């Protein structure tokens, strides 16, 4: 195991976060605070409690998930796309590192950043609404699993993208809508039966539902299904990444 290389890649990626502290950490925190002000305090006061949880508190797990998904995807996709764009990828490809070590560096850094952000958003939320976490171990498990899974997805997008437009395409056109329609701001019970059924095809529903259960003990779908869906998506991403490395797809000519 080339631990020096893993540390080098991880450290390089994390130093990018430190360099761009304002855009990496401060801006997501501000945007999440705005969600709380608008949906939690302003509109939320007019919405009744959902499953015994105030609306402001209800949206916290969903908002953390929203942050986790978008940041994991954008951090990891940018992390691998940028060396491709500038050409510095030559160094990674010619180094004595295994695919697993490259992943550990890039995806590990992207997931770390998202987890840190998720925890910062959680702390920020605590300033606006009373929070309780009924299953802290599961909360951390969902947090880490989701961050890793979507960082892997981001890595795949970063390898696939051959321009900045494509880099933005998937997060903007797929991740964001799925997250908004994934029960971030509402319980599935609030939807008409058809849309409740349609929502079950949205993988984000399972993530948000499982994550919310770890906070308040209530969920739209069974926790076991949420957990296995997350694992299945993780496995799918691992298979795709493995194929990318095995074939050198869009990395090697």
């Amino acid at each position, binding site marked *: 195991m080339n631990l020096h290389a893993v540390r080098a890649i991880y*450290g390089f990626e994390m130093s990018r976060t430190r360099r761009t502290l304002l855009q990496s950490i401060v801006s997501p925190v501000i945007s999440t605070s705005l969600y709380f002000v608008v949906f939690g305090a302003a509109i939320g006061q007019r919405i009744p409690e959902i499953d015994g949880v105030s609306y402001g508190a209800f949206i916290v797990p969903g908002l953390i998930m929203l942050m986790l998904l978008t940041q994991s995807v954008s951090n990891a996709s940018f992390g691998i796309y940028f060396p491709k764009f500038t050409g510095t990828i030559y160094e990674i490809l010619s180094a004595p590192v295994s695919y697993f070590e490259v992943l550990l560096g890039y995806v590990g850094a992207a997931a770390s950043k998202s987890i840190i952000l998720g925890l910062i958003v959680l702390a920020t939320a605590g300033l606006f609404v009373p929070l309780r976490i009924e299953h802290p171990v599961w909360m951390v498990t969902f947090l880490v699993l989701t961050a890793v899974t979507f960082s892997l997805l981001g890595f795949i997008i970063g390898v696939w993208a051959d321009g900045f437009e494509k880099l933005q395409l998937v997060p903007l056109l797929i991740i964001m809508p799925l997250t908004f329609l994934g029960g971030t701001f509402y319980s599935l019970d609030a939807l008409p039966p058809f849309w409740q059924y349609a929502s079950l095809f949205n993988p984000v529903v399972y993530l948000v539902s499982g994550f919310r259960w770890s906070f308040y003990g209530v969920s739209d779908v069974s926790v076991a299904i949420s957990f296995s869906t997350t694992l299945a998506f993780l496995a799918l991403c691992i298979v795709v990444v493995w194929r990318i490395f095995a074939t050198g797809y869009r990395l090697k*000519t």
Partner: protein
Amino acid sequence: MESIISVSNVSKTYASGFEALKRIDLEIRRGEIFALLGPNGAGKTTLIGIVCGIVNRTAGSVTVARYDIDRDYRAARSLIGLVPQELTTDAFETVWDTVSFSRGLFGKPADPAHIEKVLRALSLWDKKDSRMMTLSGGMKRRVLIAKALSHEPRILFLDEPTAGVDVELRKDLWGVVRGLKEEGVTIILTTHYIEEAEEMADRIGVINRGELIVVEEKAALIRQLGKKRLTLELHERLEAVPPGLDRHHLTLSRDGRELVYTYDTQAQRTGITALLRDLSEAGIRFRDLATSQSSLEEIFVDLVRQGQ
């Protein structure tokens, strides 16, 4: 001499169908400076890319210090430092950080003393805290070399290292290369400045249209393929070469005061005796004569033309 890189029957066809390399066989000897020459698009960078693991080959095999580059990629790659042709750098990183990053990436523990030594050797020490985007092109080139040397490679690939570089840096660079050779590092370089190959290399390979046309000791290449020129400074100006001397294929200088005879040093008969006799019979007298060897550049141009 023992070979350190062994390229065997390597071919590369890109997805577009372009055949960049055609069954290349090449042995690089331990500790030598090997210059790979060839026109643009000849396949030099593709060949380097395959050995370094950046380009997938279509066929053939490559070993580095007897390590297969696929099976034992860790052992093989940890021996290699690569300075790419393009100035690819991380704009926002400092010189120190980016060079240290390369050392870590190649599996070596941090060694600030070594990084300092490399940066000083390349006159980069006073720029160590500068961000890459603030450096000139020549300085960036130095940083790329420092990155390649950061992990103490035993083999160094220099892909056109002096392209767009000023004379001072070029001299610095060749000083570093000579020092590395003395330490036993094997160096493979591609260059467009053939005089550099002529000055630095032990052996030369010429590649054209994906084929290795020739691989030879530099001196032997010049000796074997080189032509010599005999220049005769005439007593009296000539308007044209006299018809009686046609068989010698002489060229007359523009001012009519020099006759140039080109001959093959490897030929059994150089034809000089016959030429001098014919000149005497034609009544052409000369006041001085000089011979000169053709340069590597002329040999290179000839080889490439023959291949086209």
